């Protein structure tokens, strides 16, 4: 009976790592996930971008450059992984709407539309164009949310301000979890005599109960209500992270926080263990296989030095878009910064190309040529590659 040895260790608590971990736990394997900190999902809108270059996400994927790692995931796996995701989130009381047939739009806090594939149910009623009539609620003292941006772009929009007794997204969201607070809010809203067809609220409608809260407001106000994602701190992003994290745990997975991997133990062609910094004895965990899901630069998986890019855990060979001059485009806001292509190149088994070890699998934003921003392939890509890498890992488990 071994209690500290795992079948698989996942490195990174992002959407990719949590998806891979939960899938492997579901296959009956003993899985641990170690992470330095919280993932980019917490900064995101919570919407699942699969591929935003075409109205049809699958068409969009088909037209990605041939070296794009999305081509390594069979279409069946993409579909299965996203179906599984929707089931998981529904079970966590945070259902997602939409499907792989077509992309949809979500209204952003600056009044523009974001193209995405699956949206949290709280954004289901998000308008699809500027002609829809909406009434925006904002909260007294809430920074970084200005209805004016949206009103200036919409033909028919107005707003009113509620004093929630808190002025941060987290604080207001926590208040909404309280039934009495919600009831007072609804009564106030009823008194606003809203004439517009839909009601928009910045994404602060609760933490774990957001779906139920929005339903309640819709029922009482007799019209669709939707959330507008805010800049970080982003509640829908956190709900996504919490949902995937709880699901992983319910499948039996273990999470180790504050576990920034700084070293590895290896014999021959196998990685035996990963090690974390510690104040006392070295912390180490053994496993038969490892899944690297440490994300790109923001997530912390890649680090740019003066003239090289490093993968921080295993020091795997990193694909680099030429010399440093080629890393950045002239225009800061360009989608074509070469550095977006940097990452780990993998073969069809999601194992790194040119890697001296056989039991490492890679998924998520750390993969080379992903260009998440440019191609609009964020969480959807992480979910698909997470499941694909997990499947390959199971197949090749030493």
């Amino acid at each position, binding site marked *: *009976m071994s209690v500290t040895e795992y079948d698989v260790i996942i490195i990174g608590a992002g959407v990719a790592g949590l998806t891979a971990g939960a899938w492997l736990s579901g296959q009956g394997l003993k899985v641990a996930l170690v992470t330095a900190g919280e993932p980019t999902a917490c900064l995101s809108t919570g919407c699942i971008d699969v591929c935003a270059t075409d109205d049809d996400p699958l068409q969009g994927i088909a037209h990605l450059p041939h070296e794009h790692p999305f081509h390594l995931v069979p279409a069946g796996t993409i579909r299965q992984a996203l179906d599984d995701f929707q089931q998981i989130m529904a079970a966590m009381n945070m259902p997602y709407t939409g499907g792989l047939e077509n992309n949809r739009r979500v209204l952003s806090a600056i009044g523009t539309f974001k193209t995405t594939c699956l949206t949290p149910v709280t954004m289901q009623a998000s308008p699809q164009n500027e002609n829809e009539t909406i009434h925006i609620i904002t909260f007294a003292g809430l920074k970084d949310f200005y209805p004016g941006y949206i009103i200036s772009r919409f033909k028919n929009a107005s707003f009113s301000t509620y004093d929630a007794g*808190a002025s941060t997204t987290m604080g207001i969201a926590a208040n909404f979890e309280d039934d009495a607070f919600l009831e007072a809010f609804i009564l106030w809203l009823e008194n606003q005599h809203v004439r517009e067809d839909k009601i928009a609220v910045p994404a602060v409608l609760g933490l774990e109960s957001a779906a139920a809260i929005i339903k309640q407001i819709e029922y009482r106000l007799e019209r669709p209500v939707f959330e507008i994602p805010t800049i*970080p701190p982003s509640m829908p992003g956190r709900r996504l992270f919490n949902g995937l994290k709880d699901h992983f745990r319910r499948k039996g997975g273990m*999470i180790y926080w504050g576990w920034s991997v700084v070293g590895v133990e290896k014999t021959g062609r196998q990685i035996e263990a990963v090690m974390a910094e510690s104040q*006392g004895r070295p912390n180490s965990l053994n496993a038969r296989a490892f899944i690297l899901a440490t994300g790109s630069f923001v997530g912390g998986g890649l680090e740019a030095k003066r003239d090289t890019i490093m993968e921080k855990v295993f020091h795997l060979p990193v694909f680099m878009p030429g010399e440093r001059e080629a890393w950045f485009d002239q225009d800061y806001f360009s989608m074509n910064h070469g550095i977006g292509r940097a990452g780990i190149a993998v073969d069809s088994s999601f194992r790194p190309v040119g890697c001296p070890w056989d039991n490492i699998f890679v998924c998520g934003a750390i993969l080379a040529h992903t260009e998440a921003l440019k191609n609009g392939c964020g969480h959807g890509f992480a979910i698909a590659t997470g499941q694909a890498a997990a499947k390959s890992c199971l197949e090749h488990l030493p």
Partner: protein
Amino acid sequence: MKYEHCIRCTICVENCPVFRVNPAFPGPKQAGPDAQRFRSNREKSADEWVLLCSQCKRCEMACPCGVEPAQIILRAQQKYGLEHPHSAAHLLFANNYYLSTLGSLTAPLANRFAATKIGKKIFQHMGIATYIPFPKFSFKTLRGTMKSRSRETRKVAFFYGCFINFYRPDIGRKIIRMLQSFKIDVVLPPQWCCGLPALGNGNLALARSFAGKNVASLSNYVDAGYDIVYTCTSCGLCLLHDYQGIMEIPGAKKIAENSYDLHEYVLKLIAEGELKPQFREVNRTLAYHIPCHLRALEIGYPAANLMQLIPGLTCRILDDNCCGLNGSYGFKKVNEVTALQLGGRAVSLIKKTGAEAIVADCGSCRMQLAGLSGMDAFDPAEILCESLGIKDKK
């Protein structure tokens, strides 16, 4: 203390329990890396709000960039403490074991506890010096035990911590019986409060004096081949991190290298094949509230790994919420509302799991959660003992 590494992502802010409910606290990003850019050793600190940070360390566990907001704030708290006269509450909590002073406060929370059996005991301990021998327990002397055991026997020096010492010696006795049932030799070395309450109340000097005494005492045991085992996760964090870190105690590294959380230790012995405990069925559904400082120890949740081995036991892990009490923090008048709100939220999530009882490694978490929920709250060691058939013989 790498404030330059901050990318201002606000992930720490989302994780800060105090920021969520107390508008007077600007949150880890502002109080930590942001303010640090403007702090100077030559200027007197005027930001009293640094004291509102409960040192739960959640910000540090969440930060993707290795910035240590809590550590930055802790240092600012010590500086503030040095430069300003201590308030009565801070002096009280720092100088005396924090829970034994509970009854002297008029906080409703305190009164609620004071009405309980534990509370009454707390009154009895008012004004008693910080170090009190473990009740009804005979201390084995170092020399005595060394003579009586062979070299191969595992020897443990048990750092039981104040909570067990004052309020739940029964749990302490069970832990000792459990370790003995594993054929481990257990001694209770001379020990003082770990110093965390003093540190938390901005009294670094007092904290260092406790720490220095503990290091001197425990060090002898390490030299004699003992492993140090702690059970209070806050003691553990203090022994491992703060002695070497902010307190700069000489010899602290040796203590850190040889100290184990109780469950981490048992797990290690099982993994190494030294131990094959026969866990018997325990039919319970538990909500495992992860104390902030267990999370901050960065050793995973070893008690959860152990409880997984117990047939019949269902245990739901909850680690997103601070219980709000944070040792002495919640007993201070300025933090009372914060503590109650956070506790209320933690309890409502626990209730949603449908669990029949709470389990938590930290005594003050259990006190807060049991008090607010009316549910039973156990130490994970109590559950292990239940499964192993170990009882507290008075």
